[in-house]
């Protein structure tokens, strides 16, 4: 065979490509089998549920990497406890949230306070000893660190506006969460609380859009809001709930600007 490169080079490249392909396909087969095949005793509905949010928990962690936090099979999903969220304090529009005449400084300080609240809540969760699954613990630490960075962003904005940063967890929202925190009994409860909190955070950022006097802050808000929504999707899949249940985000459960700050 006549080629413009040596046959040895070609054979080497082909071998390397084939090794990578087989490795990737093997892993992919394993992933798909574990995620979608699962135990024969699992119902078809449970298997199909992955695609809309469920995860085959039994083997996912074995895939490795800092992957989605899944765990041993939960006995049951937690109750739909609406009390774990919080609603707006003070005046606002009809679905709560940050809009109307709230100044930019108030909005960013409130945002920083909520991010630091999330940092504290994740720390309490980690310290509770209820999180037994390594991958869930890893996800909690990742999300906690990201919330810390979000707080830095908003406090940086506050300083640039000439205002005071807000450097602690939102006291009013934390107070409303205390019963839920005190009532945590197991890992599922921790995940559910985190899920509710992340939903509130994402909704709160959505509610700020269009309310800023400085339009550039719209991008800042959703650069964070999008990530909170990603947190929601991860946590939903841990609980075998739909990861993407709606086509449009809303301000449901958003925290009013000025709450607690």
């Amino acid at each position: 065979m006549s080629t413009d490169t040596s046959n040895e080079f070609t054979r080497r490249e082909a071998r390397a490509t084939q090794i990578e392909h087989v490795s990737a396909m093997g892993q992919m087969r394993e992933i798909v089998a574990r995620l979608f095949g699962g135990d024969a005793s699992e119902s078809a509905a449970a298997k199909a549920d992955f695609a809309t949010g469920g995860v085959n928990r039994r083997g996912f962690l074995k895939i490795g990497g800092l992957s989605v936090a899944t765990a041993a099979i939960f006995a049951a999903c937690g109750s739909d406890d609406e009390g774990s969220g919080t609603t707006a304090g003070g005046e606002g529009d009809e679905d709560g949230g940050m809009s109307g005449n709230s100044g930019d400084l108030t909005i960013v300080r409130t945002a920083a306070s909520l991010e630091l609240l999330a940092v504290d809540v994740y720390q309490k969760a980690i310290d509770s000893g209820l999180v037994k699954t390594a991958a869930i613990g890893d996800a909690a630490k990742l999300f906690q660190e990201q919330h810390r960075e979000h707080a830095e962003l908003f406090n940086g904005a506050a300083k640039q506006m000439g205002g005071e940063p807000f450097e602690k967890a939102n006291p009013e929202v934390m107070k409303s969460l205390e019963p839920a925190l005190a009532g945590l009994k197991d890992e599922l409860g921790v995940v559910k609380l985190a899920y509710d909190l992340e939903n509130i955070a994402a909704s709160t950022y959505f509610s700020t859009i269009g309310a800023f006097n400085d339009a550039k802050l719209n991008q800042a808000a959703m650069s964070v809001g999008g990530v909170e929504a990603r947190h929601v999707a991860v946590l939903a899949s841990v609980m075998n709930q739909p990861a993407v249940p709606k086509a449009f985000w809303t301000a449901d459960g958003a925290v009013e600007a000025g709450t607690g700050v």
Partner: protein
Amino acid sequence: MEISARELRSLATDVDAEHRDGMVSMASDLRELHAETRMLRTAATRRDLFKKAGVGAGVLTIGSVVMPFSRLLPVAAQELTDGDIAAFAESVELAAVEAYKAAADSGKLSAPVVEAGTMFARHHQEHAEAFGGAAGDKASGKPNPTLLQAVGGQLKGAANEKAILQIAYDLENAAASTYLFGLGALKSEAALKLAASILPVESQHAVVIGQVLGKPATDFVPAFENQDKALDPAKFPVK
């Protein structure tokens, strides 16, 4: 040898290109993370905002095709009206709908993945309808032709489910990135709200696909959304 040396070299080159693409994205992702705080500096004009937010050029990779995109938007893009941007967004969403259909029709996807893709396609259809309404008489009602061609080509060449999912993953992240760009360009509160209501959903789509691909969480849950993968309306015209 059953295939030509040229084909083997091409395959090896593709693998190398994919590696290099990943390294390019990593560098720009890190730059973006550190540049986020610079976004909030006072800018007298929208042009200043774009200049200050940009740190080097970003690239959009759909599959293994690298499409050049400058984060420093051309002047023309900055003059887009809300209607123009909504029409663009409509076309992107419709391209996504077609992409998921093509993926499902490829016969390479497992049933649960097809189901998820079908749901995501429905979301994109709803997004398209919302943007079409916002675009008014500027709406085309058609998928973005440039994007459709690029993604369609990649899907045809996708060898297996993993390759298809990677294309979808890139597309969803590009959509989220594009809406973040939109939030810097749109003017009316209604348009801003619409973009902001959709960005998180595209992000969540990316999470699900990233999970299936077995990516590390740091890949599908970055610290901040960014504009690195945003589609440039000038490079992806509506018609």
